[in-house]
């Protein structure tokens, strides 16, 4: 599966357009992480636990999107975009979407 945020892949032709595919996940952080992050909020610096959490969630969203693309018979997802929104206090939705295509 080829993933790209380009609209066209250089040197390859799109033979079939299979429409929009998407994957999303809603994640909450756990209290332990929050306690440590609370301390970090006083002295500043990177919140590594949060970076990891959001990164993992994004990977999961992409994985789900890829699954959808596979079931549609695609071999590439183009023009991929990411979106993040907070749902409630402490929970966030991560969305990945793109266009499933068949490349020759």
């Amino acid at each position, binding site marked *: 599966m*080829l*993933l*790209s*945020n*380009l*609209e*066209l*892949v*250089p*040197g390859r032709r799109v033979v079939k357009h299979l429409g929009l595919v998407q994957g999303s996940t809603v994640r909450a952080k756990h209290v332990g992480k*929050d306690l440590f*992050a*609370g301390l*970090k*909020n*006083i*002295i*500043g*610096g*990177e*919140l*590594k636990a*949060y*970076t990891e959490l*959001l*990164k993992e969630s*994004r990977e999961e969203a992409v994985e789900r999107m890829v699954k959808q693309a596979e079931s549609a018979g695609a071999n590439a997802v183009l023009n*991929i*975009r*990411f*979106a*993040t*929104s*907070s749902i409630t*206090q*402490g929970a*966030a939705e991560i969305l990945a979407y793109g266009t499933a295509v068949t490349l020759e």
Partner: protein
Amino acid sequence: MDLILQNFDLLLFAVLFITGYVAGRWNERRHYASIRKREDEFAGILVFTNRFPPPSTTRVATVLVSGSAVISEDFFKGVVAGLYSFFGGRIRSYESLLDRARREAVLRMKEQARAQGAGMIINVKFQTFAIGGRRASSVKGVEMLAYGTALSPVGA
């Protein structure tokens, strides 16, 4: 003793404010030093917002690369920003926070590109996400995501 107990709130605020200022500044300086060093190191990888590869590009392999970082504010920055959002004006304490997060995200994206043997990243997009929100008790920070398509020469 009584005086200390009576003014405990104020004292705690002062301690946090000073700790935040000193530790926050130290953290920021250290982070900027590391960012500058790595920016020099990764200067060979070119980053473009162009949607299409340059016309001179020969056969390339494309890989989606991304980098992200969550940077926390410190107590001092929070208080200063609170004041500014009342009076209006530039919140310089947050400008540096976002700048750090964005540059860190770009560096991590470049790191991924280098691992793929790519010399160029095109169609780079940024996304900012504020963690925490308005509630005073919540953790405050900002996530910066940078993503794009890395081009690496085929057969190299």
